[in-house]
């Protein structure tokens, strides 16, 4: 995949979402994005890779390749899985600097705020914080 900046990915997503005026289409699109997410390796679907949420679980792994963060993840809930796919389009394969410069605030503009606002329920917030932490740490260790 050709690499675009997080901001370009956000703009792309926003224009895709602007296209829907019905909430059902928006959620259908999110669910479909989740279905298209590459399968998460079964042997990593363990507690070590899990972000606990009291409503749904998120499994996640990340690895630096050529200074870009490669992301893998999944969830037991379809909409959460779709939101993971959406976040990966923004944060996946980006550099530490780009990740640190991108806050998840863009979700507000897409009408998806309730999914993240201080919400520990889904495990998604934990995943975003982890991505940010990984980026911050990579800058400390030369």
């Amino acid at each position, binding site marked *: 995949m050709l690499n675009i900046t997080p901001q370009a990915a956000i703009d792309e997503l926003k224009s895709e979402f602007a296209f829907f005026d019905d*909430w059902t289409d928006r959620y259908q699109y999110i669910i479909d994005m989740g279905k298209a997410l590459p399968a998460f390796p079964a042997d990593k679907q363990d507690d070590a890779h899990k972000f606990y949420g009291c*409503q749904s679980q998120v499994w996640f792994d990340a690895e630096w390749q050529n200074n870009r963060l490669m992301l893998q993840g999944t969830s037991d809930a*379809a*909409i*959460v899985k779709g939101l993971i796919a959406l976040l990966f389009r923004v944060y996946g394969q980006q550099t530490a600097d780009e990740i640190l410069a991108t806050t998840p605030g863009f979700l507000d503009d897409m009408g998806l705020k309730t999914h993240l606002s201080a919400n520990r*329920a889904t495990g998604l917030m934990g995943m975003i914080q982890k991505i940010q932490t990984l980026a911050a740490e990579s800058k400390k260790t030369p």
Partner: protein
Amino acid sequence: MSDTPNTASTFDVEAIRAQFPALQQRVNGKPLVYLDNAATTQKPLCVIDAVNQFYRVDNANIHRGVHALSARATEQYEAAREQIRQSLNAAAVDEIVFVRGTTEAINLVASSFGSRLKAGDEILISALEHHANIVPWHLLRERMGIVLKVIPVTDMGELDLSALPALITPRTRLLAVNHVSNALGTINPVQAICAQAHAHGVPVLIDGAQGLPHGLVDVQAINCDFYAMSGHKAFGPSGVGALYARRPWLDELPPYQGGGDMIETVRFDCVRYAPPPAKFEAGTPNIEGAIGLKAALAWHAAQNWPAITHHEAQLLAAAAIGLQEIPGLRLIGQAAHKVPVVSFVIAGCHPHDIGTLLDAMGIAVRTGQHCAMPVLEQLGAATGTVRASFAFYNTMDDVQALVRAVHRAHDLLS
């Protein structure tokens, strides 16, 4: 004129709804259908006004001022205690201890009653409990080595009371069960449970968080030793509730927290505690909360309860029938006696996804484990359920909206 009252004609749900400002809004562009009443209820205007009035006019600390405002605040606070006594039908007003809510009431008993226990003493709870009636006992187990025993639940979601005789032993010190299960809606036969426990000299604590909202409480008829309730689940403010305790217990148990208002005299070598209930009420309490709770309970008591009971039963039956038409849907908890709560799972659909889509349609439900993991695991719903919990301000239209919306969510997710 007929002498049998026509409950339908004397119960005007629209007139009740009109008293709830929060119900008059749109959410995500749709009229709000609020079905998360077991988590907390909305508040009628009289409650909002009472809290507002307190801060505008009467605000002062209680039990300590010589001035007019303090006298007014104290009078209203104590009137709230009397209202709680009436709503629970306690024998005496000094059997009502103000607390933050059910959770604190249970922690108070676990702490004060628990301080007299010895390693190996047994506390008997049930598999149907909210975490608020599990974790305080677990803490006591860690601290003092008590033993926690559990009354099992049947697959219908009812307590299996046939197991009770074998579970009560000479070491059983307290039986603590809920009046109504928040996760499933089961109404437990608390009166019979108290009778059985008392026959063995075992006192009983009832977690009544879900009992009062549905008009079920009479602590003298139940004959319990302790009854815990939360104001916010019964149309009152949050952060205030009560522990009912039979007077001899309040005399006998040590205080829960120390501070002002709970003492008679303090010297560095000797503290004399105030008589109950003050003995258990250290520090400045939630005064406006108590005053709001008084308004809520007075309002609640003035309703037409036979009509409400009928209305709630209709909501429950219609919801259960409507939902069961959805392919793959399984109701979790089908007790014979229930408050209007429907908990369900749908094969292949995650509860959180269903809840998210319902929210998009303006319908507020709760999803997840409802702070009752053990029972959901047993009933095969470990990832949680979707729970729609009704209050008597809900309508048959709300039920229809729920059923339609769950159909749509199911279509989207499968």
